[in-house]
Every structure is written in C-alpha cells, then in structure tokens.
C-alpha cells in the first residue's frame, strides 16, 4: 500500500518552517525523499537507511522512526525555491531500489 503523507498541502511565508510526515502500513527498510517542481522531474533530496537516523543539508533535514514506520522531513527558514511537491519513497524489501512513492505534499512558499 502507498505511504500516506501529511499534510496534503501547505502554504508558507518565506522564513517559516514546515514538517512533512510520511507513514507506512508496512515495514520500512529505507526512506527516500524527493522534490518535484511543477512540470519537472523529481529530484533526490536524501535517503535514510536506518531507524533513528537523522540527516540534513542546508536547512532541510529528515528523521526515520523505524518502529513507528514513519519518517518526517523538516524544512526550516523556508525559501521560495523550496516550493514544489515532496514525495517520500519506500522500498518493499531492502536493496530492491524499486521505490513506492507516497501520496505527496504540495508546498508553496510565498514572499
């Protein structure tokens, strides 16, 4: 079953923070995060491989709670360039690399 993301959509002003959640009813072996801008292909943001892992670069970070089968993406001090649709992706089995993407979260940052 497809991972469920929340919220479905969010509007932020520049400089505000946001959290995007990804929940799965099945065991998560890894969690991938991608961003897709309108009319463009998805672009890789980061991958979390282990439960409890946290990662980040610039002002975007993520955490992975393996027990709860959840991951969260944190965007701090948002910029206009953060606008787009964010997808989490999960594998059905470790190392399969065939990602099943979540329902998506549309993020809009306004001046």
């Amino acid at each position, binding site marked *: 079953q497809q991972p469920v993301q929340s919220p479905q959509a969010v509007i932020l002003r520049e400089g505000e923070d946001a959290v995007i959640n990804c929940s799965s009813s099945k065991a998560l072996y890894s969690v991938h995060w991608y961003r897709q801008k309108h009319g463009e292909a*998805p672009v890789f943001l980061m*991958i979390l491989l282990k439960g409890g892992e946290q990662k980040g670069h610039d002002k975007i970070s993520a955490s992975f709670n393996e027990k709860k089968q959840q991951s969260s993406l944190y965007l701090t001090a948002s910029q206009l360039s953060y606008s787009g649709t964010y*997808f989490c992706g999960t594998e059905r089995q470790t190392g399969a690399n*065939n*990602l*099943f*993407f979540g329902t998506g979260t549309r993020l809009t940052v306004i001046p």
Partner: protein
Amino acid sequence: SAVISQKPSRDICQRGTSLTIQCQVDSQVTMMFWYRQQPGQSLTLIATANQGSEATYESGFVIDKFPISRPNLTFSTLTVSNMSPEDSSIYLCSVLGQGSTNEKLFFGSGTQLSVL
C-alpha cells in the same frame, strides 16, 4: 549523476493505437524503472527493467499492455499498447545511479501522453 533523454516529450494518440517511449541514459546503469504519474498525483511504479532479464511488473500492470525492452545498459523502451483515454498520463523512466550515487534515482523529463 545520470543524464536521461526521454522521447517523445509529449504525444496525442488515437484510441486503439500504440506508442513506444524511449529512454536513453548517458552512462551504463543496471536498474531502470518505468513510472506513471497522473496530473497532480503521485508516481506509480509500472515495472523494473534490468538488462538481460524479463521486466518485473507491479500489480495492475501486465506485459501485454506495457511491453518493455532493455537491450543494453543504456537504453530501454516502454510501449503503451491498445491505448484508451485511461492511459492518458505522464510516463517517466528512472535509473538507479551508479557508484557514489547508487542510492539515488534519476528521472527523465517524462512523456506526456494524451489519448483521444
């Protein structure tokens, strides 16, 4: 990183016809994937295409409807057969990076298909 060229970028087709989408990668890659994305929706995995073996299809997708070829490590095609308006969607090919990028998927720019 991998650079992917996908053709055509868009097409309008008649019901009952077939369309073949090409995906060319600038480097050799082991794993390629085909996704479908309805406007405003998430990406749905159609199949995994590995060179030298039959494609592996996900639930709801069958080889007769979506035959895939993978003749070498840089090229793949997806055919949408006997099309109906329900097949209208964006089709994306994707590859798993190699070496230091082997955890990332790289995507082509997509083929926007409209079936009348």
